């Protein structure tokens, strides 16, 4: 192996890398709240609409199974080429919808982990069904799902790279761009890999802090 790496390529194309990083962060930050909200709705629908609205509950279950079992790249292409959305909106919809299915499953498991007796106790002490859900069950469930959610948030960062296939100029796209301009794909890939690890580390640190903060909050009462 007699390959001479040219690391100065990273400095030379720093603007491309920075643009890509900002685009990835932009896409992830936009997709994050949408996927959590969608996931929360679907999980709540699956968990709390058992009796009268069992049709809706079944529909929520179908939503999860459907979007979890189709590769993200197919969803990106569908919204971009079939529906005709632009690169960013298509990436946003595809990323949010595909992640929301996983998030819904995580939150559903969190809700299921809260003992039934808690809901019954809340109901019998006079809380309405809505109050029980919003003040007793969901707050506890949301704390329990923080660790698995942080893994899913990292997955959102990772899956955002699929947006390059529909021409959205995020980090992975810039790897190819630098390779095309300088034939230095190896150095570019190294730099981008390091950036992804940094991004994911930020998520891990923030979610740890969030979990600590919420737990302390509970202990204080």
């Amino acid at each position, binding site marked *: 192996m007699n390959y001479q790496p040219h690391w100065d390529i990273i400095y030379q194309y720093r603007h491309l890398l920075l643009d890509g990083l900002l685009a990835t962060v932009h896409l992830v930050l936009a997709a994050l709240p949408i996927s959590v909200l969608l996931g929360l709705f679907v999980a709540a629908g699956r968990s709390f609409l058992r009796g009268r609205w069992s049709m809706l509950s079944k529909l929520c279950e179908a939503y999860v*199974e459907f979007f979890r*079992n*189709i590769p993200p790249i197919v969803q990106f292409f569908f919204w971009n080429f079939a529906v005709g959305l632009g690169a960013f909106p298509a990436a946003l919809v595809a990323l949010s919808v595909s992640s929301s299915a996983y998030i819904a499953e995580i939150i559903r498991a969190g809700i299921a982990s809260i003992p039934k007796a808690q809901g019954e106790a809340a109901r019998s002490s006079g809380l309405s069904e809505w109050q029980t859900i919003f003040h007793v069950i969901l707050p506890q469930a949301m704390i329990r799902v923080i660790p698995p959610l942080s893994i899913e948030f990292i997955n959102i960062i990772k899956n955002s*790279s699929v947006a*390059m296939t529909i021409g959205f100029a995020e980090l*992975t796209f810039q790897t190819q761009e630098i390779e095309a301009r300088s034939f230095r*794909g190896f150095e570019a890939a190294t730099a*981008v890999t390091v950036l992804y690890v940094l991004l994911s580390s930020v998520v891990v640190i923030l979610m740890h802090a969030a979990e600590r903060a919420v737990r302390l909050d509970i202990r204080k009462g």
Partner: protein
Amino acid sequence: MDFSFLASNMRYLLEGLSVTLVLATLSFVGCLAVGTFLALLRLSPWRCLRWPTGLYIDLMRMVPLIMVIFWFFFFLPILTGRPINAFIAGLAGLVAFHSTYIAEVIRAGIQSVPRGLVEAARSSGMSYRHCMWHVVLPIATRNMLPALVNRFVALFMGTSLVYVIGVTEFFRAATNLNMRAFRPYETYIFVALVYFAFCYSISRVGALLERRLTLTGAR
């Protein structure tokens, strides 16, 4: 909606699908081998093996699969000094990426084997290797089978990403057809349904195994 162009190009699509299936099967076998090796390193009694393996697994799980595939596509030619076959690069990328997930599944499976069993085997004279092969791994396999099936579904969906380095698997085959027929709705709905049919039925098998294999009392 007119799906006839798909029917008339069925041969081409089936060829793509067979590439997907071969790629998924080969990389899953590779993942099992590399994953078992990583899991054993991770559980090794020596810290100098355990620690770097853990770091490698954690780092690999922070990088997108597309990046890993690009890595092998760019890096293997440098290493070997020859241009690389895209299929091989894709296979290597899939194995490198998914073997870290499978290593964690295998590690959890091994750790689910009761300590007492291991101690009994060791104290009745079995060597570490003997005990691993004949006591720990058979029980661990049973416990981790449902999770392994789920990882296979993820791997199967992941094969669609070798599209980026130009391997004509099922997704690229369908995309190529769409470029000639200009029927994106039909194409991508069909592709989605085919992937769904495969992944959903495999994950049903996983759910069935979970109910069948879970030892009573283990829950």
